């Protein structure tokens, strides 16, 4: 446990020692802010219209604003994850510092968990910026906070599983760019799988079940479904397990 924290701390430090962290946060703030503005503006316009028509059907902030906003963030996450994970192992392999880690009295599992945890914390820091937008809703309205919490839990789980995949990809190459691009391709694929969900054939249902984004939908609505939690947790486990295998095979092949 202690070793995990030592490695995690070092990784976090190097994120914030380079401009990557700040750059990512800034870009995310702009994109998330833009989506938030558009969604809120539409919501405000609709509610004004509905009042003027006199029909006054209930406008739910959770349903109309937060759900769409969180869905958008989950997609933005697909683009951010590769930039967080690409350097995790690729850089250590390139510079030879992997030899320091591998010859220190720590287990591979501890190295992997430490790095993944650092990536997850970095990702959470970025998510936190979007929480500022949501906080505005609380300042001017009365949304239900429980679905929001579930939504963010979903974002964290989705991030965790993409980060685990990214960590694995990063162990397979010495080149950060390749690691980043490959991770991005995988993320994109896991998103695109969802687009064929209208098909009812068996293979299409399997493919759309594999989509990370599809499993986020219930979370966005504020529904905590064990099926989706299990999906995310098992992908996290799979990603980290593959990372451990890949690290081990690195030693046998070298």
């Amino acid at each position, binding site marked *: 446990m202690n070793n995990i924290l030592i490695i995690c701390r*070092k990784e976090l430090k190097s994120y914030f020692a380079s401009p990557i962290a700040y750059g990512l946060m800034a870009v995310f703030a702009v994109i998330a802010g833009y989506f938030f503005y558009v969604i809120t503006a539409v919501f405000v316009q609709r509610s004004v219209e509905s009042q003027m028509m006199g029909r006054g059907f209930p406008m739910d902030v959770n349903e109309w604003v937060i759900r769409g906003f969180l869905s958008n963030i989950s997609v933005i996450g697909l683009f951010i994850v590769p930039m967080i994970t690409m350097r995790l192992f690729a850089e250590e392999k390139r510079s*030879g510092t992997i*030899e320091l880690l*591998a010859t*220190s*009295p720590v*287990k591979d599992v501890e190295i992997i968990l430490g790095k993944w945890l650092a990536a997850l914390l970095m990702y959470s820091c970025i998510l936190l910026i979007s929480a500022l937008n949501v906080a505005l809703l609380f300042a001017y309205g009365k949304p239900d906070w429980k679905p929001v919490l579930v939504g963010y839990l979903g974002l964290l789980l989705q991030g965790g599983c993409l980060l685990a995949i990214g960590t694995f990809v990063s162990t397979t190459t010495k080149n950060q760019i390749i690691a980043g691009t490959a991770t991005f391709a995988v993320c994109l694929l896991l998103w695109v799988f969802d687009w064929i969900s209208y098909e009812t054939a068996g293979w299409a249902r399997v493919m759309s079940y594999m989509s990370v984004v599809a499993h986020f939908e219930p979370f966005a609505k504020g529904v905590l479904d064990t099926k989706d939690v299990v999906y995310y947790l098992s992908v996290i486990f799979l990603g980290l397990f593959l990372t451990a295998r890949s690290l081990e095979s690195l030693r*046998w092949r070298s």
Partner: protein
Amino acid sequence: MIKVEGLTKRYARNVAVDNISFEVEKGQIVGFLGPNGAGKTTTMRVLTCFLPPTSGTAQVAGFDVLKDPIEVKRRIGYLPEAPPLYPEMEVCEYLEFVGRLKGLPKQELPRRIDEVSEKCAIGDVRKKLISKLSKGYRQRLGLAQAIIHNPDVLILDEPTAGLDPKQIIETRQLIRNLAGSHTIILSTHILPEVEQTCQQVIIINKGKLAATDSVENLTRRLRGAESVAVEVEGRDAPLEERTVRQRLEQLPGVSRVLHKESKDGRHHFEVESLQGRSIRADIARAVVEAGWNLQELRPVGLSLEEIFLQLTASEAEGGKKQ
């Protein structure tokens, strides 16, 4: 302290280390000598548990590298060929990270960092970013991280590669100072380096053990001590082996006389001279004056430098073929 038996490391296409066995006593400095690509780094990586051996065993302080890697790693300080540094960290921060990683308790860290920065003369750059350090400082910082947890065994892969002459002398001095409390293995392809820093030499080539010897033997051969094969025969009467040996041993400049074999009244000896003495003329005169037949007199034995040159030459040929 270190015991390697029948160690073999095979990669997909080639054998990097082929059935190597050696032992290193506590507190010794051992030089790993060989041309590039001989398998020095691979052997060191096996000892540090970075690579698992294909077959054979390696033990450090009584722990097997396959069975108790964590225990072995605790007792080893390792400086790879390229010092494993994080350019975005400060020197002090880096040492702290490595110290914690090696399992030093938090309260001991500041004291250890002070000690190793003084030993490795990096005290004046403690607040600098590693990316701003010069090559010499990086190398010394690499050494500092290897000794931060005060390991029993130090494994240094070409610690002086790429340094300027002054830095090389300083680094060698530093390594000599570390001996005694640590058992040190260092690899190099520079012969004088071994002579100046090590007590024991292990020469490997193409993955095979070419020779192990103490540095005294090595330098004795290098300094021009010669080894001569002599074949003597009685002229009229058969000759006793003992009388010839006594006669040869009395010669000035002879350090050792070895009896090889006796056949058909002929006696083979191998005579070693003291350092820098030429004894062939004296032997010839002594044999003839004693009234014996001198059947053969030729220098034998390759010096380690000759062995080493042969090794490098064959490597160069191999390189050309490719």
